[in-house]
């Protein structure tokens, strides 16, 4: 028993260090008047005064709020309707569509953003083709409205996830009662099903709004040409603003982002409990009788397909087309410029090859290691009623308040600041640690949902027969959650392949990953290479997705 307690407390302490050290450094740096490594740095509020006086910061903040609000207004209604259609009705092909609907979650936003530029930008494939046919293309990709709409459409899957799982928990009898009373499918959705899952919809609204504050890839690529800055891109541009490293200013922006994110994370935590409670109120008998859509069947399918076309097919086809042409622009004929050279070029740069190998390594082995860490934390708080385990519960939520870009910056400083760690800065370990902490809350949700499936009886049965706590864990608990762990590994694999913002500040010789390479190469205008790397990124994610679907892994925790 003693050893078990020590193990648990140790896990709490290590996790707390990994979470609070970067956060602490950001806070500390924000109240200095110079980078923390300069001996002359003194406590001061000058950085706050500077940033808060900057009109660009104000504009970035307003733009962020507008985008976040706008994308919530787009994603929530469409996502809820999508969930109702796929879960509750006889929509043709719904079992086939379900996993496809989640794809945007696993696609890197930089890749998507890039895809939109090459597909529908001023000289994008579809823009030029449209011009050829109709004489003009009536859209401007680089406007605030386009950015908001695209962000909203790509975040529909998050709303779908939470709303659909709540809908699944509703007793079919509640809807059947409405049907017997004479209501049609649309009426039932609006008056029974969706109101019943209101807490889940509210939760997903807060989640999407929160994700809006974290946006980085889309505004970086779509906002820049139109001069649109959001908080994260403002932070990113700040890096070289004053010529000298302006760490204190970056820290202030990071603190501002964290200050908005934290209350939203806390709100989400409060709401998730409420949404779970609501679902159990449902009726009896979960007979999955779908509601007939009647004449609306085909318009409904068309709606889903149009959304998938705009959010997945359009950007991805752009990425793939661009990766296989040598150049593109007005008056260029597709058949004449087809080539494989872009991929050949990838192999000529050692840092790009390293980036691809690093991405594979960090996703496969790093992902496995992260799952091991998450499992150790999960096991530590498993069946542990104490103040420590409740603290651990909140602890794993903390990194959610730090967007990847901010966390990457914070970890860069950790590796600069903590002397014994600095040799590891230029190794993949730094990237792995940052990734694992950024995705801590996500990973813990996967692990704890696996652990929740294990009935306490099964463990107590082994205890009364004479197994020690350690034996119970090894011989009962772990074997019972092994499929859950493999599933978590696959999901973490995809998330780590997709990740781009966390690696941005840690990027250096030895720590290249595909995601952060795309971000930095985009700035240099190396479109051919960005396209080829994007294809590599999408193919890796697709491979993970394929295996996960093959094994029947649920795509959410």
């Amino acid at each position, binding site marked *: 028993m003693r050893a078990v307690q020590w193990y648990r407390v140790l896990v709490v302490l290590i996790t707390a260090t990994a979470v609070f050290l970067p956060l602490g450094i950001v806070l500390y740096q924000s109240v200095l008047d110079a980078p923390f490594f300069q001996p002359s740095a003194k406590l001061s509020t000058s950085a706050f005064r500077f940033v808060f006086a900057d009109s660009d910061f104000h504009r970035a903040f307003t733009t962020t709020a507008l985008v976040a609000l706008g994308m919530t207004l787009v994603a929530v209604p469409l996502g809820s309707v999508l969930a109702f259609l796929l879960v509750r009705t006889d929509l043709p092909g719904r079992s086939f569509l379900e996993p496809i609907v989640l794809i945007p979650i696993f696609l890197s936003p930089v890749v998507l953003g890039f895809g939109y530029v090459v597909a529908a930008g001023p000289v994008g494939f579809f823009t030029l083709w449209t011009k050829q046919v109709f004489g003009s293309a009536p859209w401007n990709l680089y406007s605030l409205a386009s950015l908001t709409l695209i962000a909203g459409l790509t975040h529909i899957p998050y709303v779908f996830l939470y709303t659909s799982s709540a809908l699944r928990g509703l007793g079919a009898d509640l809807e059947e009662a409405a049907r017997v009373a004479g209501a049609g499918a649309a009426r039932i959705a609006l008056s029974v099903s969706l109101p019943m899952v209101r807490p889940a919809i509210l939760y997903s609204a807060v989640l999407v709004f929160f994700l809006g504050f974290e946006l980085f890839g889309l505004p970086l690529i779509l906002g820049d040409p139109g001069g649109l800055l959001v908080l994260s891109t403002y932070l990113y541009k700040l890096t070289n603003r004053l010529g000298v490293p302006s760490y204190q200013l970056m820290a202030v922006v990071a603190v501002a982002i964290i200050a908005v994110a934290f209350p939203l994370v806390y709100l989400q935590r409060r709401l998730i409990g409420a949404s779970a409670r609501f679902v159990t109120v449902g009726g009896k008998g979960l007979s999955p009788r779908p509601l007939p859509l009647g004449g609306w069947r085909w318009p409904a399918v068309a709606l889903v397909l149009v959304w998938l076309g705009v959010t997945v097919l359009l950007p991805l086809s752009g990425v793939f087309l661009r990766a296989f042409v040598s150049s593109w622009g007005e008056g260029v004929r597709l058949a004449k410029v087809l080539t494989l050279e872009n991929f050949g070029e990838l192999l000529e740069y050692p840092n790009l090859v390293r980036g691809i190998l690093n991405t594979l390594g960090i996703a496969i082995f790093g992902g496995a290691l992260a799952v091991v860490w998450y499992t150790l934390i999960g096991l530590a708080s498993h069946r542990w009623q104490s103040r420590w385990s409740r603290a651990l519960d909140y602890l794993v939520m903390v990194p959610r308040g730090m967007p990847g870009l901010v966390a990457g910056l914070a970890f860069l400083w950790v590796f600069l600041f903590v002397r014994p760690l600095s040799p590891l800065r230029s190794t993949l370990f730094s990237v792995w640690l940052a990734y694992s902490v950024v995705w801590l809350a996500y990973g813990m949700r996967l692990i704890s949902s696996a652990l929740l499936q294990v009935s306490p009886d099964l463990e*107590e*049965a082994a205890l*009364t027969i*004479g197994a020690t706590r350690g034996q119970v864990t090894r011989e009962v608990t772990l074997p019972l959650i092994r499929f859950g762990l493999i599933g978590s590994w696959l999901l973490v694999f995809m998330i780590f392949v997709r990740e781009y913002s966390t690696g941005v500040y840690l990027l250096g010789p030895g720590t290249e990953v595909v995601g952060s390479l795309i971000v930095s190469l985009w700035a240099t205008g190396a479109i051919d290479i960005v396209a080829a790397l994007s294809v590599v990124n999408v193919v890796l994610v697709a491979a993970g997705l394929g295996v996960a679907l093959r094994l029947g892994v649920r795509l959410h925790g």
Partner: protein
Amino acid sequence: MDKLIVSNVYKRLGANEVLKGVSFELRRGEVVALLGPSGSGKTTLLRAIAGLDHPDTGRITLGNQTLFDSENGAQVPAERRNLGLVFQSYALWPHRTVFENIAYGLRLRKVPSSEVQKRVSAALGHMGLEGMAARLPHQLSGGQQQRVAIARAIAYNPQLLLLDEPLSNLDAKLREEARVWLREIIEQLQISAVCVTHDQIEALAIADRVLLLEKGRIEQEGTPQEIYQNPRTIFAAEFMGSNNELTGTVVEVKGAMAKIAGTDWQLCGQLKVDRRTGEQATAVIRIERTQTSDSPGENCLAGKLDAAVYLGERWDYLFHAGGLRVRVRATVAPAQKPYWLHFPKESLWIF
């Protein structure tokens, strides 16, 4: 096994006192049933004996081994108590075969594998599970799963078998057979056991002694016959069997007997608790003790038949007698005739 002594076990969960000082003893070869409604603390008590829950105060000893003692902080962890526990859910490990489920306790005790083979086969034989060794739990019926759970709990000859609502997951018909089978196997293997149940019939059928629990206290303790035929409190009387209840006022007390009366009736019965003339009281009689007769007599009330329900082997008649509603068991179809309800005074208990 030696004697299990539970003394003065107390447990509080938040503001709720789950066990308020429970004591009992279990002798070698005896089967005790902890019977009570949900919330009576019976499962908590069982888990305290198993070592899965820790009481706040009290003492639990098994032979000369102290399993738990709040005085000196002694606490043997569950895994070192060498007890067998059959879970309500059976808790069979879904990732192990029937054989591996049963063998687990033996392997933990480092029994050589040839011996494991022999003992598991013997256990399977006892339980009528021959040929099931290689199956996984989900490939078994509910009744078979329950037998595997019992085999797993007794395979390593634990000092004491604990059963948590062992039959509640079986459907009604199967439960009846399993009751008889369980009693048979316990007698055959001479197991000492504590069985938790909320089902009185289960308790009466399986146990040598019944402990009736209510709100964390032992309400009454005795053989099944004593508990059923001589309840000492109104709770014990009401909890067991099906009853007619008549509330009224005590109008006369004569030694162990008393008269109770309502607005338009008066009956004589056994006084079970201390009551004086003029006090409110409740008279309880088992339905099967209430009789009908064709003519008035002592302790009889005129009854009017409201409904008769046919239940196969018997009829349930529902009468009213003035303001009272009374159920009676009968073996014949109801007839169009005046009925009198007879309440034999030795069977009418006044609380």
